[in-house]
């Protein structure tokens, strides 16, 4: 495997109280690629994803051990500022979670809280570019004042991605971003991922194996908190080294 590592996960263990949810995870996530994490429900793939932007901090009784290096910095270090981290590592959730506000207010949320408001024309340029990137500009340019909840689910999810892009992150995490969408919308979001990887490092958690096969460059298979196998997606899906991976992707369990 020849690639530049963006996120390097080193002997990561995570406990919910007494429950050992992630076991000695060792994983290098490549820069400017789409990495998919697959596995049956409860295998820890979402937990692993949420460790990368420290969203697990919100849950009580969570204990993490090990290191996650992003650009050489251990983000699990207690002195790490999670606000800075989460600007650098954006996240898109399962449900398109737009605020009950106008499209513009949704997009500007990040800039407002980070006090990065610029002149009106500069701000509108950034908004324009982010909506362009997610393929919404032509549809929405005249309705930026409309409530974001009136958009279709797919458009809402694209808006969420645009909202993250405006923070100029290096990494974007996707937690089952298509599970609320219909097949056509899913396909379009997958195409969007392929465009976005030119600029960002993408990590996507999915329970949909076809999606991982179609949309990702690398795939990691997790089972009961362990990383069973990691490699180029084509290898994992055609020629897995582990019997268990083979069983899972051929639908024998999970």
């Amino acid at each position, binding site marked *: 495997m020849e690639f530049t590592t963006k996120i390097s996960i080193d002997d990561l263990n995570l406990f919910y109280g007494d429950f050992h949810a992630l076991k000695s995870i060792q994983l290098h996530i490549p820069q400017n690629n789409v990495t998919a994490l697959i596995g049956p429900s409860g295998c820890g793939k979402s937990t692993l994803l949420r460790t990368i932007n420290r*969203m697990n901090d919100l849950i009580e009784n969570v204990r993490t051990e090990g290191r996650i290096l992003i650009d050489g910095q251990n983000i699990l270090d207690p002195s790490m500022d999670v606000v800075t981290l989460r600007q650098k590592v954006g996240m898109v959730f399962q449900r398109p979670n737009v*605020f009950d506000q106008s499209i513009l207010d949704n997009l500007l949320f990040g800039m407002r809280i980070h006090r990065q408001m610029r002149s009106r024309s500069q701000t509108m340029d950034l908004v324009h570019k982010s909506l362009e990137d997610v393929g919404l500009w032509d549809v929405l340019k005249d309705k930026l004042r409309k409530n974001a909840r009136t958009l279709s689910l797919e458009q809402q999810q694209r808006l969420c991605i645009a909202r993250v892009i405006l923070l100029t992150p290096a990494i974007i995490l996707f937690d089952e971003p298509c599970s609320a969408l219909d097949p056509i919308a899913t396909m379009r979001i997958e195409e969007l991922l392929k465009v976005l990887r030119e600029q960002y490092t993408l990590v996507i958690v999915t329970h949909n194996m076809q999606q991982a096969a179609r949309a990702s460059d690398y795939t990691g298979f997790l089972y009961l908190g362990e990383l069973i196998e990691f490699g180029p997606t084509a290898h994992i899906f055609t020629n897995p080294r582990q019997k268990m991976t083979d069983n899972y992707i051929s639908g024998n369990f999970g």
Partner: protein
Amino acid sequence: MNGAKLREKIAFTVLGFVTLLVILPILLILYYVISRGWGAMSWEFLTQNPRNGMKEGGIFPALVGTILLVIGTMAFSLPLGILSAIYLVEYARDNLFTRMIKLSVVNLSGIPSIVYGLFGFTVFVVFLHFGASILAGSLTLAIMSLPVIITSTKEALEAVPMSYREISLSLGATRWQTIRYCVLPYAIPGILTGTVLSLSRAAGETAPILFTVAAFYLPHLPRSVFDQVMALPYHLYVISTQVPNVPEKFSFGTGLVLIALVCLMNVVSIVLRAHFRKKKQW
């Protein structure tokens, strides 16, 4: 008509009838108070001091006193109640200490109001040397209002979906920014409802102000927070039971003004609620 449909009809009728019974007392009280108290309503009644052993004149000092007490109560109980509820919901970890605080908040709301009055008398009037004063009365009423304000604020905050907080935090907001921009705007209507409810109760309470602020007869306005004032509920008690030969319409008029005051507070809260609901941002 088959059995299920008949039972449905019976259930509907019974439930509707019971609901009617519940609002009947409210309607009767309103009718009774308005019909007997309306005769006392006049500009003079609202703006004059009581005269001639309270058998003539108006209720101006008592009206002002009650308004001042509500404002004083609000000044102490709103920040204390809302901020501590925010702490309990958004920051506090679930441990023995937090659980004990929550338990005592619940228990505080079960304490009879006369006990708050005694407590306020002992602590504020005597121990802290505030004397019987607006300050002591407001503090006593504030402590009495706290449980309802804390509980309703807590419920309003907990009703805001966790996902709102998640998006905000995932976009790099701090906890406080998340509360300020993504939680409070959605919780404000619920907070207002509970707050106004408890302030209305404070406006109508007699027992907590009995020893801490209320004056029997004081025909001038207070000059500082260390002065005593008359208050509507206590004045009502006084002219109904302590002073002979006060016209009946004066008692009911006083009650009517008190009810109107509470209604006015509710109207203000409804307007504010509609305003915040529309804006979702402030």
